[in-house]
């Protein structure tokens, strides 16, 4: 029995190491200079250039490319803080926008009998069929036609065009006991009162849970922001990641330390949210999909 427990722990520790080691190495490597990494590879133990790397990344003072270090005064790097801000706007805007419209739509679908209901329902749910990556050019044409290129609206709205959150809310509402609405009827409460006084308070945990999931999804958007924005002012952290990949494709050596710091920076906020609110997150993920 005792040996069994030790084996159990050993397996779990191995699992944890499997997940954490890559990110730890990325962080440890970010505390060296680019030249040290290029020469000696990635590291397990911390170096002494933490302030140097992270300072450069956050202020945009250092270039992302080793080849240019100390060469020219002009630096094209976008500051990490700006990218952080844009990622936050994207994550928050996406999560809030999606929750707001999805809650209302799901409310209409579940609690109202109206002739066009089922038809609308299927239209909304059809959006689960085709990810943005494979309809990207027609989508871009529409956003550009509406004059929304280089705007947060153009960045966020098309991403919201998906039914995942509506689906979650629909499932959740359906699990709410019938007595609730009967009680509301007895109180002579109309649909708006019912929503504000009863449904919304009941949904709080659900909203929190979906918020966490949607924030992570929005934050992690990769391809769409690259096509949608031509102004550096809109760069997100994930666009920074993509730029590093471009640079490597181009045959340049990136400043590895900053690349690793950027990777870690882009992971910290969503991970913190998931970890800090893990009970909501787990509840949201597992209960909404049932």
């Amino acid at each position, binding site marked *: 029995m005792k040996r069994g427990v030790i084996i159990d722990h050993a397996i779990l520790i191995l699992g944890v190491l499997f997940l954490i080691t890559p990110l730890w190495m990325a962080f440890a490597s970010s505390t060296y200079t680019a030249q040290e990494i290029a020469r000696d590879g990635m590291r397990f133990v911390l170096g002494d250039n933490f302030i140097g790397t992270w300072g450069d990344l956050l202020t945009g003072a250092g*270039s*992302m*490319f*080793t*080849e*240019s270090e100390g*060469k*020219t005064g*002009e*630096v*094209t790097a976008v500051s990490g803080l700006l990218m952080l801000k844009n990622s936050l706007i994207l994550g928050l805007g996406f999560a809030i926008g999606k929750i707001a419209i999805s809650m209302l739509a799901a409310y209409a679908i579940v609690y109202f009998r109206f002739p066009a209901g089922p038809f609308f329902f299927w239209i909304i749910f059809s959006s689960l069929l085709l990810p943005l990556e494979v309809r990207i*050019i027609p989508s*871009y*044409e529409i*956003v*550009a*036609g509406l004059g929304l*290129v280089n705007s947060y609206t153009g960045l966020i709205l098309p991403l919201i065009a998906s039914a995942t959150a509506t689906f979650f809310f629909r499932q959740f509402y359906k699990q709410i006991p019938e007595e609730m609405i009967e009680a509301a009827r007895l109180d002579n409460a109309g649909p708006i009162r019912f929503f504000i006084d009863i449904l919304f308070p009941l949904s709080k945990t659900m909203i929190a849970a979906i918020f966490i999931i949607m924030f992570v999804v929005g934050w992690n958007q990769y391809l769409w922001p*690259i*096509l949608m924005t*031509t*102004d*550096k002012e809109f760069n997100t952290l994930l666009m920074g990641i*993509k*730029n590093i990949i*471009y*640079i*490597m*494709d*181009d*045959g*340049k*050596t990136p400043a590895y330390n900053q690349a690793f710091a950027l990777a870690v920076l882009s992971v910290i906020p969503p991970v913190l949210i998931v970890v800090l609110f893990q009970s909501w997150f787990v509840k949201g993920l597992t209960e909404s999909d049932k």
Partner: protein
Amino acid sequence: MIRFVSTLAATALLATTAQAATEITWWHAMGGKLGETVNSIVGEFNESQNACQLNATYKGGYEETMTAGIAAFRAKQAPNIIQIFDAGSATIISAKGAVTPVADLMTENGVAFDKEDYIPGVRTFYADSDGKMIGMPFNSSTPVMYYNKAALAEAGVEPPKTWEEFEIAAPKLAEKGYIALSQSHGPWIWSENFMSRHNLPMSDRNNGFDGPATKIGYNNEDLRMHFHKLKEWKDKGWYGHYGAKWDDNKVPFEKKEVAMWIGSSGSFGGLKDTTDFAFGTAGLPYWKSIVPGEPLHTFIGGAALFTFAGHEKAQNECVAQFFTHLTKPETQYFWHKETGYVPVTKAAYDLAKTDGYYDREPDAEVGILQLSEASAEWNKGYRLGFYPQIREVLYREYDKIFNGDVTVEEAFNTIEEESNELLARFAKTTGM
């Protein structure tokens, strides 16, 4: 009081002129150090005059930049200037009405323009079949061979001019523990420029200049022979294939595992920073058995700048002004020195010569000398549709040849079949 009013008026006037500066946009694919050099050229242009404000945006790699341009054009949001790479030239030049030919743009805006000012290999590549220049050549490069001087000296060999010489030098380098050769761009170096250097046709219809081509020329005896040799060299440890990305093959040279590396003449500037040994530059070797006389000039690589049509006249004027600034000998010379790309005009080349640049850096001249070698029927350029996808097919099949999945013959049959299919599709899209 009067003075106050007049100051006010003057400030207001200043403010309006500042506002009146015409804004133009340029999407480019120059990342890293190149991007910084682009920025300083743009900054210089903006400071040199008040009428125009040029905003340059880095849009990622060549393919991504072209795609962004296509998407933007379709959505009527096209930038004024876009940088399009060599492989995309058919895509943009066949788009009749989408771009204003640079020759027209310049003359319409009262700027003298003579294509004879440009060096030969540059002049023809981005021109139409009548020789009218459509794109403004910008970052122009050509494949050259860099060699580790110490390694070659250790093995007692000279940098090979021909592949026959290479076959003699390689075993000596191998003996000293070096892999003799690697190269960084299979489609560009081993295919397109194999054809130009040996005067072989890339396709029917005059390399696609006379109309959409339908037959690719790659499945020929000479190129297949070259790949049989490469495979043989690889098996003997003379040639290294480290992957499809540029860096995969360059780094072993920087780490002194490989003695000679074929890259771009534009790699010169970067390589000076990343190597800690003396390296020399030589021309792209050729097969004496295929061209018994002198070799021919290679295709220009890199990219050109195209002007999207449909913008205001004032903006086009600014574009013309910027192109004038860009092709000034001083700007070209600065660009040449900073990046290693070749100067595109004869005047800039002369400036570099009179400044004694090539006496100090003889290696920097190799690229431009190679582009100035003999012209012939098939090395003016090529204009092939969906060529970026054809390059993907080449990358894929070359990977397969080197890891032994397919034979050279099988690979080239696939290349021919898929390329011809792509060419046919492209011909249909242009409705010709």
